[in-house]
């Protein structure tokens, strides 16, 4: 065995050298220049053809799509709920009323989120009647205005600190956008927990209104879409389908 190994070591070294470059045949890595040329040419043509074919089939596939409306919406039949500001850790807000630094991030996040809702930005949009469904067929699509003042104290118009400095923090709950979703019935978002909630479509602001002064306060809020048959608010695996739960911890 050892004899064989020794032999094979020298041999394999020589074989490798010969494989790298064989001076007699002029072969480099086992192929001559001509052979390399042929094989490269073949793969160039072959893969070129495959690439063209793939591009063509993809193009054909993309022709089946509509620019405005996705072909199928079966996988998002029901919207999820998301909250703003984005909590740092998993849906837990924690801040201290007396330390502006601790909630500065939340306020900025909210401001950023609400910028597109500013009256200036929405002025080209249609004014719709509250609660009525506005169905559109295109080709020109119009969106309804969402007056920011609907959010009352949480609109940021009166209180640029969204109540955080007073110990009444605002959390916005938003329903995910789904194209062509027609809610049946009178959908609304209901939040439970010791909080005061004002619901509005599509944004809901939750302002915590603590009465007791004992600190720190911890409160868990769960918001749900209710009042619509086709908007689910419970799914075993999807914790955000038509509902959202978050926790607020507030220190003095």
């Amino acid at each position, binding site marked *: 065995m050892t004899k064989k190994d020794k032999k094979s070591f020298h041999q394999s070294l020589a074989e490798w050298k010969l494989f790298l470059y064989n001076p007699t045949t002029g072969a480099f890595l086992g192929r001559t220049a001509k052979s390399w040329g042929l094989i490269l040419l073949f793969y160039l043509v072959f893969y070129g053809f495959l690439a063209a074919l793939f591009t063509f089939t993809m193009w054909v596939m993309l022709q089946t799509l509509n620019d405005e409306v996705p072909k*199928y919406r*079966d996988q998002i039949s029901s919207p999820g709920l998301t909250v703003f500001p984005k909590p740092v850790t998993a849906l837990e807000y924690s801040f201290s009323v007396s330390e502006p630094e601790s909630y500065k991030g939340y306020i900025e996040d909210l401001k950023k989120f609400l910028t597109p809702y500013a009256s200036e930005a929405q002025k080209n949009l249609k004014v719709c009647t509250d609660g009525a469904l506005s169905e559109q067929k295109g080709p020109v699509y119009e969106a309804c205005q969402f007056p920011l003042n609907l959010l009352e104290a949480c609109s940021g118009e009166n209180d640029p600190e969204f109540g955080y400095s007073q110990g009444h923090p605002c959390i916005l709950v938003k329903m995910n956008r789904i194209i062509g979703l027609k809610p049946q019935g009178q959908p609304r978002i209901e939040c439970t927990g010791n909080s005061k909630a004002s619901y509005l479509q599509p944004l809901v602001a939750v302002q915590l209104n603590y009465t007791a002064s004992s600190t720190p306060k911890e409160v868990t809020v769960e918001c749900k879409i209710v009042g619509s048959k086709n908007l689910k608010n419970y799914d075993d695996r999807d914790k955000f*389908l038509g509902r959202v739960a978050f926790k607020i911890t507030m220190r003095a």
Partner: protein
Amino acid sequence: MGQKTPRIYSVELNGAKDMKQTDKGDGKDKYRGLQDNCLELRNNQRQEHLTKEIDLDDHKLSNKELETKYHTNIVTGLSSTQAAELLARDGPNALSPPKETPEIIKFLKQMVGGFSILLWAGAILCWIAYGIQYSSDKSSSLDNVYLGTVLALVVILTGIFAYYQEAKSTNIMASFSKMIPQQALVIRDSEKKIIPAEQLVVGDIVEIKGGDQIPADIRLLFAQGCKVDNSSLTGESEPQSRSCEFTHDDPLETKNIGFYSTTCLEGTATGMVINTGDRTIIGQIASLASGVGNEKTPIAIEIKHFVHIVAGVAISIGVLFFIIAVSMKYRVLDSIIFLIGIIVANVPEGLLATVTVTLSLTAKRMAKKNCLVKNLEAVETLGSTSIICSDKTGTLTQNRMTVAHLWFDNQIFMADTSEDQLKQTFDQSSGTWASLSKIIALCNRAEFRPGQERVPIMKRVVVGDASETALLKFSEVVLGDVMEIRKRNHKVAEIPFNSTNKFQLSIHKTDDPIDKRFLMVMKGAPEKVLEKCSTIMVNGQEQPLNNSTAEAFYTAYMELGGLGERVLGFCHLYLPADEFPETYSFDVDAMNFPMSDLCFVGLLSMIDPPRSTVPDAITKCRSAGIKVIMVTGDHPITAKAIAKSVGIISANSETVEDIAKRLNIAVEQVNKQDAKAAVVTGMELKDMSEDQLDEVLTSYPEIVFARTSPQQKLIIVEGCQRQDAVVAVTGDGVNDSPALKKADIGIAMGIAGSDAAKNAADMVLLDDNFASIVTGVEEGRLIFDNLKKTIAYTLTKNIAELCPFLIYIIVGVPLPLGTITILFIDLGTDIVPSIALAYEKAESDIMNRKPRHKKEDRLVNKPLAVYSYLHIGIMQSLGAFLVYFTVYAQEGFRPSTLINLRVEWEKDSVNNLEDSYGQEWTRYQRKYLEWTGYTAFFIGIMVQQIADLIIRKTRRNSIFQQGLFRNKVIWVGIASQIIIALILSYGLGSITALNFTMLRPQYWFVAVPHAILIWVYDEVRKLFIRLYPGSWWDKNMYY
């Protein structure tokens, strides 16, 4: 004429003198060969031990000395107490089974070879990957754990399956050896007792008679007409007589020793047990075999080679993408996970199971054709066989003497020698025939065992030696009830055959009521018989024997002898009634009857004829490029004759000796290049050097080794292996076992084979028929081709399974294909189809091509890997990606949006990820879409694997030449793929643990154009290969 006589003489009935001659030369050599082997195989200590054991001197001792040595009494035997003590001391008289590997080791061995290593490595890497993931993120997905566990399970289950398969054939083997427990008639406490042979101890006095197996090594104390068959020990097929005289210094040669496991053919004998169990000569030889290493099977080498390729590809791609990932600023830990993922994705999970099942299916098919395969891997070995070293007796021949030719009325008649002769068709009208047939029937001591009237004549059991059996069966076929004829022609006196007289004689009352004369009939060595004759019968008339008739006799005798047949002469004499009245009392010792002036009637020759299927099988071997070498203990003339009649030496080829004879020149003057055939005797072989043997093996395409000992078989096998040949060896004797082990595939005879031979062999021929080997070769070659197809089929989708992961890493699209989904392809939809390829018929006559070259025709070669990975594999990936992108795009994520979406996509906190239309997706909704993507990719691969399966049916021919519907199992495979996919998508769609979702029916057809493209492309490939053989295309594209 006189010169020639000895040569003819040597083939006549019971050639005892000839036997002695070879005993003197060859026999010693046999013994030496045995010792040589010891030197090679065992360490010195063991060898000394063996030499000492064989140097037993009991044959030189007198009965008295023996009694003292073994504390026994020849008349009363041992006492029961003595025997019990000795039994306790020496252990039972049985060969300890060859060092059987413990079952658990056998079982574990199934789990570590070849493929299994690959899977184990994969499993361990998976667990490591999970460990890394877990250490950084406690909630990481368990996919890697599942994958690792599944890999381990696959190895274990396949191991259990393979173990079970092999255990099954071992059990069939065991049923052979479990014959009726052997009994021995022993004298103990002055009483004759029948005890199991296992309980014999040294010093026991045993009695044996014709038909018994000798129960231990015994020193004969008394023998009467005892003959033994030592073939299992020495390979000598001739019966050897035994007596109680010390005739030779060598215990193997002396006549007064009987060896364990040899058979007593006739006569009776009493002997003293001198060795039991493993201490017997045969026990020592049997233990030699375990010293010869088992050669690695060619398929094991191929699989190792394949594992190297797969591992090479896996590690190269893995490392390449590790570097890419690191340079793309992935975290190193993540990159390591990717690296492991890529390596594991390359492991063909299903292949181990498929190959094992495929091999065992073939093993089953072969077992039906009487080849029982002990080791699954040996299935293929037979297919790559390039040299078969075959025994003659029993394998090539029917292993029974049969009347082949008759000579009477100056004419040679041919008799039917086929296996199931019902009648003889030669001209039987002559009066000479009537006399001859009478002599044949009467001058014969063999008898049918009673109660076999319904058994076909050829299959009846006969008590008597081989020649007499042949004559008895012959006359039974020709004349009808021989026993009745003998009864009617009452025998009054008889001289049995013995080696000094070389004739057999009996005197009968005739069945002719008018003719009161006695009929004296005689048969024997032709020239001895002719000496006693003065007349010869021609056309029923007695004529004086003159020179011309004598010459005719010699010509016929020479001709028959030259055919390697055993020739007997027959004569008779009607004793004159006046000299020998009815009441005459014949005395065989005083010989009170005439022994000259008899009437010569005819000659009859016998041979152990070739099996009728053998010549055809040899022709097949020849066209398949397999060299068939005959290795026999028989006489060169007989061996050559049989070799010629079965085609091992073809009709127009000559040996050096033939040429010398034809040209009438000396053997040395013959140009050796002219001779195609060679007959080499054991004596010549003994004096040959390795190089000389190599030269013989390479320069003659047709070789017969005659008069060889089983030990020399090992030398021949090694010689063949030096030529890089894959050697198959047949054998039955205990002494064959080293050669059987040394051979690449040892083939033991199921009927005639000894247990030791069967143990050493890889395969057992259930019917002892050479032709079965050829069907085995065919199956073996087919399985090699089909395994290629299976592997090509399996490797293809590996790329389609790997690409998604690579694209995921590089482009950052949501993962297109999940780990569990991959497992469902590898171990679900693809299993039945890849097994179905094992049922594929051969593309061309596989028996018309040369055996594959061990080192050049690999199972998995470069074109196979390249074509599977870089051609079909890439096409398949594109097709599957098309389905994937279609699903995502139609759900709202256009391909452009998907790029670099990976990080956001996988964030659990992002529950409002926007698609191309601004719709917002929660994490779970995305996950569900991802699973739909998995399912889509899975269906894409599955649809194209159907095309892949169809194209893999052939490697060169068009599918339409092969027949799309000839292999029905392929369609079962396709159906299984579709059904499994349907169940996974629609039946288990709600079980999210499996990551399958309901897929819109139209997505099933997205990849169909790609599937058709694959088929068309492969047809084009095959077309160019057929059109331009040897071209650049052929070299690069034919796998």
